């Protein structure tokens, strides 16, 4: 199965929204995406009521323990091939409460769980960071997924090859004796 969304979904993309316990910030920005100012129905992207009709899952929230079984069920209900749009800081990396006892912690940990328990490989995922991401950022995410625009964000690594020169006056240990006194 090609891991390329453009090959998988040639025409419209129907999205099922799963709120796995977030604050609703990302959910309202998602609501904005279908409102007059941004309006993704121009691209054929729309929300559907049943996971069975969906091609993509828009996941928001850090996946709380209470919501976990339902998220798994929703996940299994969306027919393959499917893609996942992880929206916001909670879905991408667990958010500000990533290590809380009540939270699984974003799609990364969720996929580990899926692999361990159900032997399911993670589907193609697009990460949309933000807290919450602007509606335009969400549209950008969908367009990157569809291949309409190029991904802008790439990892960057910098290694300091050589440390800067340390001036001589900092290199001497201060002139006094650190003497061991008897009995101390």
């Amino acid at each position, binding site marked *: 199965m090609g891991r390329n969304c453009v090959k998988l979904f040639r025409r419209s993309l129907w999205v099922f*929204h*799963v*709120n*796995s*316990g*977030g*604050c*609703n*910030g*990302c*959910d*309202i*920005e*998602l*609501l*904005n995406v279908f*409102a*007059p*100012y941004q309006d993704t129905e121009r691209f054929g992207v729309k*929300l*559907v*009521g*049943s996971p069975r009709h969906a091609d993509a899952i828009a996941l928001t*929230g*850090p996946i*709380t*323990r*209470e*919501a*976990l*079984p*339902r998220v798994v069920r*929703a996940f299994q209900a969306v027919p393959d091939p499917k893609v996942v749009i992880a929206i916001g800081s909670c879905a991408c990396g667990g*958010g*500000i*409460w990533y*290590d*809380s*006892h*009540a*939270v*699984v912690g974003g799609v990364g940990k969720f996929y580990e*769980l899926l692999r361990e328990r159900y032997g399911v490989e993670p589907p193609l995922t697009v990460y949309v960071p933000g*807290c*919450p991401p*602007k509606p335009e950022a969400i549209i950008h995410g969908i367009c990157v997924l569809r291949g309409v625009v190029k991904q802008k964000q790439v990892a960057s690594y910098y290694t300091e090859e050589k440390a800067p020169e340390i001036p001589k006056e900092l290199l001497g240990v201060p002139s006094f004796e650190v003497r061991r006194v008897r009995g101390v």
Partner: protein
Amino acid sequence: MRSSVSKLIEELGGYGEVRVLRKGLIHLKACREDLPKIAELLHWGLGGYFSVSVGVDERPVDGLLHVYHVFSIDELGTYVVVEASVSPAHPRMPSITPVVDAANWHEREVTDFIGVEFVGHPEPGRLILPYDWPEGVYPLRKDFPYDSKVSVGEVPDEVVVDEKGLEGYTKLPVGPYHPALHEPEHFILYVDGERVVDARYKGFFIYRGIEKVAESRLTVNQVPFIAERICGICGYTHSCCYCQAVESAAGIEVPERALYIRSTLLEIERIHSHMLWLGVAFHVLGFDTGFMIMMRVREAVMSIAEMLTGNRKTYGMNLVGGVRRDINEGRKEVVLRALRRVREEFRESMEDILRMREIVSRTKGVGVLTYNDARRLSVLGPVARASGIDTDVRKRHPYAAYKHVDFRIPVYRDGDVLSRLLVRYEEVLESIGIVEQLLESMPRGEILCEEVEIPEYRKGVGATEAPRGEDIHFVITGRDNKVYRWKPRAPSYNNIPSTIVMLRGERLADAPVIIASNDPCFSCTDHLVVIDVRRGVRKVVRGEELARRW
């Protein structure tokens, strides 16, 4: 005119030691056996209302588990914090729920998190913790590490609720997932034909362990950021409330200009929240055009917020002691101009919409909450104001810069969905007026109190009028730049139980709009599964179809 503050202190003095922590905050250390009597006095006798209960594990301090019940005496502009303690060996104290219905969920939460049992509670049982959470493990006790990942078990298919007296009625589970973007909530409606007989509610899918993270990992100045993310619509009120609680506990004076900026942003948040609610309410009524119109008018408010704070929603403006950013003259002008347009467009659209007979007939007389029920359940905000209770934290416990501005509190007596709609409509117009007054009269000066000293183990209460009602935070400061205990109580916590009262006797098709009218931090009409018990047939129906077909 009833008692003054000194008379209140005298009456409470009969029950224990009374201390005035600061203006508007009284602390009573009582014996736990007296709690029901004190609750009766404060909620019913003196005309106050029950606000929140907080359980605190103070074993490191004095070896006991403490419970604080907070009441608000609107008339005197005072909060009364009633403290009682139990030993961890016999953690039992009398419940105040038989006296004050509103304390039902609060006490169950304290049992879940601290392990104190409330004797006499009519419906004890797990409220917030997940089904598979082990017994006897209390997350908010100090010996439970905040990041321990207790293993996940299997969750039963059926939600377990108490169904006494409801056998024989058709059961309609509503939730937890929704076709169009709402949070996971689970209502179960019991219907007889078209009429809803009763309902049960299971929520708290969004329990993230925020309080535990805040007291374990975060510093005092990082908590405003987690507070803001409690809710994506009314986040800034939570952040302000927390800062106010710490400032009250530590006695920090916030500069005037910072208070004006906070109030401006709070009102902007109220405007966008109410507009969103109106849009969602119209959508739930089947009137999608209204939804689109509201989202359109609301966009200008989001742009204002983005310009002032750097983000449309999570403003990130608060630190303990003030705000991080200023509002300069140029931006002030832009905001005022934009708000004038917003007011015009909003008023025009709403006047047209309210003339529609369909909207009025579907909301008038529907989902009524009487004044008595509202008092009994301590409902807050627009829900209370629509049922005839004249309460608003901005007027009764003035905070930030509200004492410097003029505004009305709309109060309606019918208690139906239409009243709640009208209350919110008028509040938007009032809020626009408040922002204009604040921006015109903002004083010069500092915006952040740089040197803040926060002494250990001080108690503070911060309260604001969130778009959904009174938001109250209780803070006990700790050491090492941390908080010892932080309990945020969002207004929906008090309001959601009233949904069940509103649903009884109503038509099934009105259920979505009734649930939405409570504004439970968002509408929670959900995906319905209809189980026709008699014919053994299962159908899946979407919420909107339900609203249109039946």
